[in-house]
């Protein structure tokens, strides 16, 4: 109870800043009589967004689905690479440059090609999200495994532990703090990745919704969809803390 109150109190400055910003925005739109196609007022974004809630929700669901599948693939790939690299120095040398190279790919240029290759279904979007998010996860895990204390490794070896046992008893749990940091970075990229992938080509989703509303000059609805996107990202970010508390409660500070 006091914890929740304390957290709320810590958020107060941010909330105040947001409210002031919204108030100034609202005042400017009213005072300058700017056309809503150019800049809708925050109240108009909210009311129109609410009016179109069914449509926005219908588009949010596919985006959430794409995000979940894409991020799951990304997690699987990130884990597979990190574990492989941890066990094999040869794979470490082979994969590390490729990992870095994968991050230099201009996704903007690749995304349309992915649609040519994989069509308008789930596949190209999943690939985009995985490409955007697997890197921080893989790197976070590789560094987490590598951070294992040499003395801890020696202790396990003195107990007669195999490489696998060392991994299971020390390297894996020891990597949890870096993993959850990486997970938080990855998940914030995942939703934007999904929106971007939909923007390039999809039959439904918030990205497509935004694109359509932009083309019909419904700036207010574009912004309403942006707001929903932000809410989804923040919720998923918060969810990682819950997962961490369940999976590795010891790894949280304080």
């Amino acid at each position, binding site marked *: 109870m006091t914890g929740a109150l304390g957290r709320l109190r810590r958020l107060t400055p941010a909330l105040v800043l947001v409210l002031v910003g919204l108030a100034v925005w609202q005042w400017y739109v009213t005072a300058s009589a700017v056309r809503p196609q150019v800049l809708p007022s925050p109240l108009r974004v909210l009311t129109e967004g609410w009016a179109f809630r069914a449509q926005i929700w219908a588009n949010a669901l596919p985006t959430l689905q794409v995000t979940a599948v894409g991020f799951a693939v990304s997690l699987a790939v990130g884990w597979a690479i990190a574990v492989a690299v941890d066990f094999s120095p040869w794979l470490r040398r082979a994969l590390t440059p490729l990992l870095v190279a994968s991050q230099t790919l201009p996704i903007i240029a690749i995304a349309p090609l992915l649609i040519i290759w994989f069509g308008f279904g789930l596949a190209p979007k999943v690939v985009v999200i995985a490409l955007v998010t697997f890197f921080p996860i893989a790197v976070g895990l590789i560094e987490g495994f590598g951070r294992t*204390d040499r*003395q801890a490794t*020696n202790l*396990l*070896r*003195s*107990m007669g532990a195999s490489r696998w046992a060392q991994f299971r008893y020390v390297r894996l*749990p*020891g990597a949890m703090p870096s993993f959850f940091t990486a997970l938080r970075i990855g998940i914030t990229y995942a939703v934007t990745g999904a929106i971007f992938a939909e923007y390039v080509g999809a039959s439904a989703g918030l990205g497509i919704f935004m694109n359509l509303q932009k083309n019909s000059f419904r700036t207010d609805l574009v912004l309403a969809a942006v707001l929903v996107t932000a809410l989804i990202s923040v919720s998923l970010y918060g969810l990682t803390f819950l997962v961490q508390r369940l999976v*590795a409660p010891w790894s949280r500070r304080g």
Partner: protein
Amino acid sequence: MAELKGAEHKLVIEGLRKAFGPLPVLDGVDFDVAPGEFVALVGPSGCGKSTLFDVVAGLEPPDAGRVLVDGADATGRVDPFAYMPQRDLLFPWRTVLDNTTLGLEVAGVPRKAARARAGELFEPFGLAGFEKARPGELSGGMRQRAALLRTVVQDRAVLLLDEPFGALDALTRIDMQLWLEGVRAGFGWTVLLITHDIREAVFLADRVLVLGPRPTSVRHETVVDLPRPRDVSMITQPRFAELEAEVLGQVGRGRAAGADSEH
């Protein structure tokens, strides 16, 4: 000859040599330890004590020399030794009890049996009631006792303790030394202890071996002829002071010689 010698000793270290690239660290280390004996190793810092332990514990291969346990060659083998590193290395993702069973679990002992075996030692180790606690909830002294419990419960032939109390404050360290002296008698452990603390070495050990500067070898042996069990009053007795002075003198000599050789 060595086989004969090995038979009457728990542990025989025979001509151990080790170099890291061009840097020689161990220059023919020889000593032996009788069953149930407590031997302390002291030496100037950086002399290669920890390398010696890594080689004895089978974590690093020697360039030359042998390690014999109960007369049999155990060079490069980890299973005759239970190793306690300088830091307690209790893992935050395990309870205190599960930290102490780690060695048994790695050795394939079923979890329940491992917990039962380690659990029996919680009382004599002053950890009763903390089985389900997390390591972070323990004091420094308790953490070291838990780390020592994790070491001895493996039931290996020889305990290798690498500065086990080095990170503790002075008062806790004295408490721990008194406690170890008390608890050791009941278990009959064969112990090899590395320490920087000469008083600790004299107080706990049957013999103190002084190592020379790097590349190191055993330079001097002091037999600690103080009766057991020992208590805190012994530290103020003349014989204790004599022995302490002898060891200190030998360590100092080694360090001066080392400083000379570097110039």
